[in-house]
């Protein structure tokens, strides 16, 4: 029978809480495989997906590869733990003209042949059955694993597929991701979700100064992200009036600083409204004028009771792009729709603003009213499939 063996990663580091983490992970696995026929077994220290439609094995593996908290998996054959059945299965493995190594694990010590002896025996068998094959204990081309478990079953596999690792989604609370439409913010969302945090997303648009296509792009990014992080509640807020007011009343070079301070305020309010515990941004130190240490100090200072997580803070653009490609958001991120209105952008934005300077500019605005209007007029979309 075909089965998929699952291995958990960091969960082993957990002490008394391990059960909570494990149950969350198992729940997430089941949600990810929703719509598939399968059985999940947790026996003798092994986690096994079985009884699935074998034609869909690759699809199921690809889905499992997106579950945070899984360390690796192996598609395997499950046979009775007898020499005869094991040999029969080993016979199906093709090692012709390749070097190989046999790994035997014997959790069931009642199995009559010790691990080392079994390895040798199976190695000999493979050598006789596969022309041109050779044993290489250091860098074999084929790795053949035989895992004999307490349930009197043996699992035979030759592939170990790396998974996402990290912590199960939902084990680290829920936060609000500022999703711009660029390359960095989806990556930030992915990285924080990999640490177990569920996310909702907040997008600001400046229609009619920005296009509807820019908004569609963000919806698409949220959709791509939801393949990893499950359903996303996307909050869409019109920022047009705020920008018009700043443009009318404040010094041009402070446009971005004030804009971002108001965005942060809106984000914190939305966190309060929906009981979210953190704000996540895609900022990367020094990438642009608004992402200098001073700028982040000034924009971050308006958030009073929530941590701001910036998973990309120390990453190079190239590293961010690499992840963006891996999670398939890159091609959408680079679509040429402006995510922030360029009509109001100053030629020389202030690079090292200070909090008092920003506060002086803000005195010219009715900040509370603008923030409230943003929050009250938000539009909420549910994106991706149900996770809970």
């Amino acid at each position, binding site marked *: 029978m075909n089965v998929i063996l699952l291995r958990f990663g960091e969960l082993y580091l957990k002490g008394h809480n391990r059960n909570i983490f494990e149950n969350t992970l198992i729940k997430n696995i089941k949600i990810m495989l929703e719509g598939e026929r399968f059985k999940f077994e947790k026996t003798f220290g092994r986690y096994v997906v079985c009884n699935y439609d074998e034609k869909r094995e690759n699809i199921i593996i690809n889905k499992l590869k997106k579950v945070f908290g899984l360390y690796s998996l192996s598609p395997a054959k499950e046979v009775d733990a007898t020499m005869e059945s094991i040999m029969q299965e080993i016979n199906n493995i093709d090692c012709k003209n390749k070097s190989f190594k046999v790994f035997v694990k014997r959790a069931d010590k009642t199995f009559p042949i010790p691990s080392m002896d079994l390895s040798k025996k199976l190695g000999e068998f493979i050598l006789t059955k596969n022309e041109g094959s050779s044993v290489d204990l250091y860098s074999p081309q084929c790795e053949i694993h035989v895992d004999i478990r307490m349930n009197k079953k043996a699992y035979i596999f030759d592939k170990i597929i790396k998974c996402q690792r990290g912590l199960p989604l939902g084990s680290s609370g829920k936060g609000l991701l500022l999703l711009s439409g660029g390359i960095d913010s989806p990556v930030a969302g992915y990285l924080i979700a990999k640490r177990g945090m569920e996310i909702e997303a907040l997008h600001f648009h400046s*229609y*009619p*100064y920005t*296009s*509807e*296509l820019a908004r569609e792009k963000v919806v698409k990014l949220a959709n791509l992200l939801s393949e990893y992080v499950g359903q996303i509640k996307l909050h869409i807020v019109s920022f047009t009036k705020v920008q*018009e007011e700043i*443009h*009318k009343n404040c010094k041009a070079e402070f446009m971005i600083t004030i804009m971002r301070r108001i965005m942060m305020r809106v984000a914190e309010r939305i966190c309060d409204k929906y009981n979210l515990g953190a704000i996540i941004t895609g900022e990367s130190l020094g990438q642009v004028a608004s992402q200098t240490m001073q700028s982040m100090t000034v924009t971050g200072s308006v958030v009073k009771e929530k941590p701001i997580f910036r998973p990309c803070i120390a990453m190079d653009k190239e590293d961010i792009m690499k992840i963006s490609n891996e999670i398939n958001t890159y091609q959408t991120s680079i679509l*040429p*729709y*402006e995510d922030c209105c*360029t*009509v*109001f952008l100053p030629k020389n934005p202030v690079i090292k603003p200070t909090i008092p300077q920003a506060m002086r500019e803000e005195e010219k605005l009715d900040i509370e009213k603008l923030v409230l209007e943003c929050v009250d007029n938000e539009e909420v979309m549910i994106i991706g499939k149900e996770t809970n």
Partner: protein
Amino acid sequence: MIYLDNAATTKMFEKGVDIYKKYACQFFFNPSAGYSQAIDVRHDIDKTRQKIKDTLNAEKGNVIFTSGATESNNLAILGSKRNGKWEYVFSSGEHPSVYNVARYLENQGFIVHYVKLTENGQIDYEDLKNVVNEKTRLISIMHVSNETGAINDLSLINNIRQKYCPKALLHIDGVQAFCKIPVNVDELNIDFYTLSAHKFHGPKGVGALYARDVSCLKNIVYGGGQEEGYRSGTENVGGIMAMGYAIDNIDITKNYQYVEKLKKCMENELETVKGVNIIKTESPYILSVSFSGVNGETLMRSLQDKGVLVGIGSACSTKKAGNRVLENMGINQDKIKSHIRISFSEELSLDEIKNAGKNIIETYQYLLEKVK
């Protein structure tokens, strides 16, 4: 809704849809098949062929049905390509479906000349004289500019060709002209003429290439040899028949005179406003105009909210890419950014134009107030 983006596409004639349906459900036979029902269909699409030739005033020559203008342009240019040290002449105001083929030829090692544009959007005829020579294989110039509505003087172009490079082929992209502006391909010695059905109330996905002498053409797609081998693939019969219906039901002269009034009316509305700059061009179907201080795209979207749909031509929304055609006319970046394209159809009323004009002015002034 007031639709002022008819250069992008037009609404199909409703009866054309009925015709399409008739050939999709009742006379659905493959025109290449051998039984009489199929032969009838073949004769029917041949009638559309004849209608196109009549409209172009072509006594001889072939009409090859294609999937639309992009394919027709590619077929004319690449299909007439010959090995050797040939040179090509294009205007620098061509649509991407010609311009990017020109770029391709350049990459293939051919010498390609791009004729300059004047500030009124037409080609610079003096420059054309300078770049053509006995090695010129093909001259490809659009009849009416999709960006500005400028009409190139085909008779002047033909004269230059006859005088300086009589052997060169002449291809005219007539997408914005066919069924709108009269043309006589015989008199003008035009070798290829491109048209696209959806620009004149026909369906999308169908067009044609007129070729005066197909012997200078080779197919660019390979297959079953339909369209006498020049364009393989089963003909889009419904589309071709609906295109034929559209041709039958358009009165070029009457429409021209009427649409001229619409354009004049819109110009009168807009001209009075400070900051509005109209590019004066010949085609009554297209009005190219800039609104100083306001982004054209922003204006387009704000107008959309008021039910007025205008175009921004092929202006790209990226910060880097501007508008190649307007740039080549020597228009400055500020005007290009604030540019929109208003394009008309005979289905619009004068009241609608006045109403849209007022809306455009109001929206422009509102936005100007916000961004100044």
